[in-house]
């Protein structure tokens, strides 16, 4: 395993250097934040890989598991940069520039408290955000079809969870914490009741699953509310259109495997 970690870290270091060279020069200032984020991340990954390769403590046989975990994390971080952020920079187009300027105007209009994330038309899976990279991915043709534009507000809200120690974010984050704590406390009580022997045993498992879901669900609810207060009823209509045209069962609740999103119907209830 020692030889494997040595060789793999050298190969990944080469890959990191090559990826840095794939970031085009002369990109517009619109995309500068992502450029900086990519270079910072690459530097962090290189530092981690150098540690994996030559840190005396990590190289001890009793620390092999720790060393392998560090290597795996660096590998995944590098993959993510390559598949997402550096690909966005490498394939940056005029359409991306237009979408970014529009997103910037929308963010200014609602006095969004953070710098507008970079928006790129490179998504393979509808709208999604990488808050740590300050990047929102949207479908390639989205710039020409504005029906889902209000979903951009939902994505902007995800960035509000990515930073701590900013007084401008306190009200939003503290409200979320309060809601999350209240829901958790309620479900813990239900779990205790279900475990007292008077309910079918399956209930206990269901409630435990929902308890696991609530942290992610409450984030989605809060992002929905942010979008609703920013874009108005257009957001609720966009959500309805999305659920009706591409959703699964609007009322489906996960019973055994946690999900990242609450049921569509619950999100609609929050919106109306």
């Amino acid at each position: 395993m020692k030889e494997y970690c040595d060789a793999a870290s050298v190969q990944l270091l080469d890959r990191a250097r090559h990826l840095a060279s794939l970031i085009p020069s002369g990109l517009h200032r619109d995309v500068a934040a992502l450029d900086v984020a990519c270079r910072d991340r690459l530097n962090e990954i290189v530092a981690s890989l150098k540690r994996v390769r030559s840190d005396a403590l990590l190289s001890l046989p009793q620390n092999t598991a720790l060393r392998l975990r560090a290597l795996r994390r660096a590998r995944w971080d590098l993959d993510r940069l390559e598949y997402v952020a550096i690909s966005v920079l490498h394939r940056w187009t005029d359409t991306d520039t237009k979408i970014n300027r529009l997103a910037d105007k929308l963010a200014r209009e609602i006095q969004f408290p953070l710098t507008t994330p970079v928006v790129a038309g490179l998504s393979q899976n509808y709208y999604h955000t990488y808050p740590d990279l300050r990047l929102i991915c949207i479908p390639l043709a989205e710039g020409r079809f504005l029906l889902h534009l209000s979903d951009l507000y939902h994505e902007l809200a995800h960035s509000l969870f990515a930073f701590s120690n900013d007084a401008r974010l306190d009200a939003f984050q503290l409200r979320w914490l309060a809601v999350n704590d209240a829901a958790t406390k309620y479900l813990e009580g239900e779990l205790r009741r279900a475990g007292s022997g008077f309910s079918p045993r399956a209930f206990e498992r269901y409630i435990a699953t929902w308890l696991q879901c609530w942290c992610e669900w409450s984030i989605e609810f809060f992002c929905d509310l942010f979008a609703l207060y920013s874009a108005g009823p257009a957001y609720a209509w966009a959500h309805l259109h999305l659920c009706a045209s591409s959703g699964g069962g609007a009322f489906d609740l996960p019973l055994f495997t946690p999900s990242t999103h609450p049921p569509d119907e619950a999100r609609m209830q929050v919106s109306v």
Partner: protein
Amino acid sequence: MSDIGAQANLYQRLRWYADLIDEVLLNVKAGAGSIVDERRKQLASLLMATGPQQTRPLDAAWFGALLRAKELLNVDWRHIGESLLILGLEPQVIAPLEKLARALEGWRSDTANRMRQSAR
């Protein structure tokens, strides 16, 4: 937000905590590092904030949710956090920290795999 975005958010959090715990574990196991070490203090304050309290930082709330999701709240994390801040660390704190590190790594890797699958 699509599922891949939510998984990416979760992944980032898991990754940060996993890295922190491994770094502290490495030093603690070797008898290196000290109670003034910044990363050790960070982990200690996260662990100490897992109990019920009126206010806590966002990081600690997420950390608590992760422990709950992995059914790891039955350990006295507050005590382990306090132990990280005193001289002469009790060796008993290493085993639960290792268990936590393994659980987080398993979850991190599951989340990474789910992101790969949802992108296929």
